[in-house]
């Protein structure tokens, strides 16, 4: 259409290449969004140029809202003429942008959106993290093998697609491991923003599960674990990657000690040389330990940059083709190889809260 | 006591008062009569600051009233019995009376005045605890007058106090007005019942579409043919 006459690049300004960062900066998921933005910005600072041109990040707030998300994505593509997009935290926002990037033929690389639907049937959406089914399996294995659990209860955030998905994948994996159709004693629900979970917890505790799996946001999860302790419930809690934020510990304090979860990356065991650069620079700039999703935001930027380099062009479609070919790319959060769906095949990391810190426990390799 | 000069009031584009001049002397009963919409209520509202004057002046005991806020009027001794009763429907009869004395601090005297009101309106005493909103129209009117008296006004202004009242009560209200007047209260009265009003008035003004057309003593106006024709009707006078 209109783009054709300008030739190869969609950028209007020849000196800069624009990459969109499509994240929830405000609203319910602002915390997660901010972490990914940090990663992308750090990467941009370290690698500000490609093809001899300056790379500029254009940050668009999807306001943790699906309608806004679609508009924000459209705006990035059409008004800002970005050549690629990073994001978003929260699979539903990525899904809302899915049609736009596909129709406008601009590639998007999600950092931490783990819902299978994000990339499914969409040639223009990629991600640098693993998927919920894998994460569910990892945690089910951990509960079964390491904690010796045979009966589990689940408390999930029912209006959060991530939590609902992860709970289901965990359930399937755990039932298969135990061969016991009743291995999941109970699945109980709560809503985003709830603060009282006492009755759900008491109900669960009556069934005496070995472990409680609580996929959901760190905010509610920290409160859940805290309230369980206050009610005298002494059952181990395990969860997913969203727990890995400083607030999880701030809010949960001594009560979240011993909580175990899976995540993408650990700073204790740098995986690649890129990890070391990332860690060094991040600590220097922010004076704290990075979250996994920050590393993923960083990686998403690098993958795009690498693709532009290989394409030797700023034509979004050519960039897409190169992103799709990404193989054994050394990112900060591990080696990235994208499969035919555009999903990264990677290892997962297990961490535990110990003495007010997230401590590395184990690495789980991808299942082939 | 109260002097109004060249007062103009407008609601948006509607000019309700087009420069009226009016004088209320201490200790008198002054009445304002006129057709519906002539601007009678507006005059009273302007005095207490509920309607904004566009130009002109209102002075009360030498003080410029246009600068005063409505809430300070009772302190100055000016009380208005508003058109349409406006009792506090969610308050009891007793509380309505008490709120009439809101600014007063002399608790003892308030109690005495309460008794006085109950003497004037025995009906109200029967209904001390009833919510004012459920009183009948006439009862509410009595309550509104009683409430105003509780502030011990020097100048009592009443906007159509006989509206919707039974003949017996109308007579009673006029007797009460005379009674209050005897106790030294100056009265500015608006009435549709021009006949009765003129009978007790020392001084009367006729208002027509925002201007004063006739003024005189009550008895003068009662005899005026034009007034008879326009306001008193054939079956009267």
């Amino acid at each position: 259409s209109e783009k054709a006459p300008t030739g190869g690049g969609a950028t209007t300004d020849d000196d800069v290449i624009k990459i969109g960062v499509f994240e929830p900066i405000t609203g319910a998921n602002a915390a997660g969004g901010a972490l990914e933005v940090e990663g992308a910005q750090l990467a941009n600072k370290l690698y500000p140029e490609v093809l001899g041109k300056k790379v500029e990040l254009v940050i668009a707030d999807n306001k943790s809202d699906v309608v806004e998300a679609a508009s924000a994505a459209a705006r990035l593509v059409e008004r800002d003429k970005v050549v690629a997009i990073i994001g978003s935290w929260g699979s539903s926002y990525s899904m809302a942008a899915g049609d736009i990037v596909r129709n406008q033929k601009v590639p998007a690389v999600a950092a931490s959106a783990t819902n299978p639907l994000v990339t499914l049937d969409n040639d223009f959406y990629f991600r640098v993290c693993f998927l919920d089914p894998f994460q569910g399996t990892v945690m089910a294995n951990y509960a079964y093998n390491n904690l010796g659990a045979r009966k589990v209860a689940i408390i999930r955030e029912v209006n959060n697609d991530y939590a609902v998905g992860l709970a289901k994948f965990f359930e399937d994996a755990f039932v298969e491991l135990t061969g016991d159709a009743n291995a999941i004693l109970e699945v109980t629900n709560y809503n985003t923003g709830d603060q009282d979970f006492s009755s759900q917890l008491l109900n669960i505790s009556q069934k005496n599960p070995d472990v409680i799996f609580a996929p959901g946001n760190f905010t509610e999860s920290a409160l859940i674990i805290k309230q369980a302790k206050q009610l005298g419930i002494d059952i181990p809690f395990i969860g997913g990657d969203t727990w890995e934020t400083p607030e999880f510990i701030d809010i949960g304090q001594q009560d979240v000690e011993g909580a175990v979860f899976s995540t993408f990356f650990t700073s204790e065991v740098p995986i690649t040389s890129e990890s070391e650069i990332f860690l060094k620079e991040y600590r220097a700039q922010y004076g704290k330990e990075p979250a996994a999703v920050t590393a993923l935001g960083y990686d998403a930027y690098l993958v795009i940059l690498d693709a532009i380099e290989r394409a030797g062009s700023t034509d979004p479609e050519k960039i897409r083709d190169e992103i799709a070919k990404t193989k054994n790319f050394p990112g900060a959060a591990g080696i990235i190889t994208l499969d035919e769906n555009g999903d990264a095949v990677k290892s997962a990391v297990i961490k535990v809260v110990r003495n007010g810190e997230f401590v590395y426990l184990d690495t789980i390799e991808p299942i082939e | 006591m109260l002097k109004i000069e060249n007062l103009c009031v407008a609601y948006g584009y509607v000019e309700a008062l087009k420069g009226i001049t009016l004088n209320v002397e201490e200790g008198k009963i002054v009445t304002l009569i006129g057709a519906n919409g002539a601007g009678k209520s507006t005059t009273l509202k302007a005095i207490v600051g509920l309607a904004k004057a566009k130009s002109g002046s209102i002075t009360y005991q030498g003080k410029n009233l246009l600068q005063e806020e409505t809430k300070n009027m009772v302190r100055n001794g000016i009380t208005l019995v508003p058109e349409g009763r406006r009792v506090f429907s969610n308050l009891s009869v007793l509380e309505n009376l008490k709120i009439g004395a809101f600014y007063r601090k002399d608790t003892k005297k308030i109690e005495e005045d309460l008794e006085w009101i109950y003497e004037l309106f025995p009906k109200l005493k029967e209904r001390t605890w009833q919510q004012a909103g459920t009183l009948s129209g006439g009862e509410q009117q009595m309550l509104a007058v009683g409430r105003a008296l509780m502030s011990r006004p020097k100048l009592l202004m009443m906007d159509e106090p006989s509206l919707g009242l039974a003949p017996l009560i109308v007579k009673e209200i006029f007797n009460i007005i005379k009674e209050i007047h005897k106790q030294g209260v100056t009265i500015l009265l608006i009435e549709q019942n021009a006949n009765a009003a003129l009978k007790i008035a020392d001084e009367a003004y006729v208002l027509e579409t925002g201007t004063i057309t006739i003024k005189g003593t009550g008895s003068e106006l009662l005899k005026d043919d034009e007034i008879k024709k326009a306001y008193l009707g054939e079956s009267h006078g």
Partner: protein
Amino acid sequence: MKKRDIILTIISISVLILFLMFANSRFDSYQIRILNLCAIYTILGLSMNLINGFTGLFSLGHAGFMAIGAYVTALLTMPAAVKNQNFFLQPIVPWLENVTVPFLPALLIGGIMAAILAFIIGAPVLRLRGDYLAIATLGFSEIIRIVFTNTQNITNGALGLKSIPNTTNLWWSFGLAALTIIFMLSLINSSYGKALKAIREDEIAAESMGIGLFRHKMLAFVIGAFFAGVGGGLLGNLLGAINPVMFRFILTFNVLLIIVLGGMGSITGTVISAFVVTSGLEYLRVLDESINLGFVRLPGIPGLRMVVFSSLLMIVVIFFRNGLMGTNEFSWDGLFALLRKRPSFLKREVGR
């Protein structure tokens, strides 16, 4: 209508059609999306104005009706394969799996479902008055959302629906918006519309004049819900992805805002306001992003846009209590009178 007015109206409509043709071929998808949203919000605003502005019912349940319309339309237009892909956690109920109908009937069914629900809800809640009605309808809209979150095998729960066919385009949205405007104008000026206004003015008097309160309130409520459902369906098939969280109270509030700013009880006001608010919100997006002034870069402050937006809103509400148009409507006579009185107005409009 005067002959002059008919001609002017025909000219305006033709100009609008030409504009849409132009927009379709020359505007980028972002601009087209905003235009689509404007038209959809016009429909939503008008439907809410019928209930709140013209009938005086304080209803805050719009997001619920929109949710019904959006889900029904989406589920009816998605091909079976897409549905199966969406429902990967728990399969969709069989009776929904294979039904696929064209867009227009799907929209209509969406609207009708919303209307049926309004009818069921209305029977009990329309007996309530004022704030109580407001809070009860708000409650129903939340209940709808919570039910949609929990009915995994019908709505896909929290996962929402994606890959909904992007059928909504300028012709659909503007076409339906125009039909809605015509419908509302005709309704409001009919005897039924006047009866609704009478209810708004004074329920007791209206009832004493022989107007059945319940029946007429229900009429407004159900018709409003129908158009809200249609608007919701258009919105869902514009976005391509919906989920229950999207239909929170804030969505109702956005629509409420449009009608209050435009003038409760004014169709013209609602239309203008829908366009101004929808595009205005997009313009304000600048505030959240960093601004490059050439020599310095001002960092964007996330959230500032909404702060500015809500202050603007409050200022407008405080200083223009009756909104842009009050209860007045556009007429050619009125426009000419305005132009004659204030020639500068014309200049400003043309200058832009």
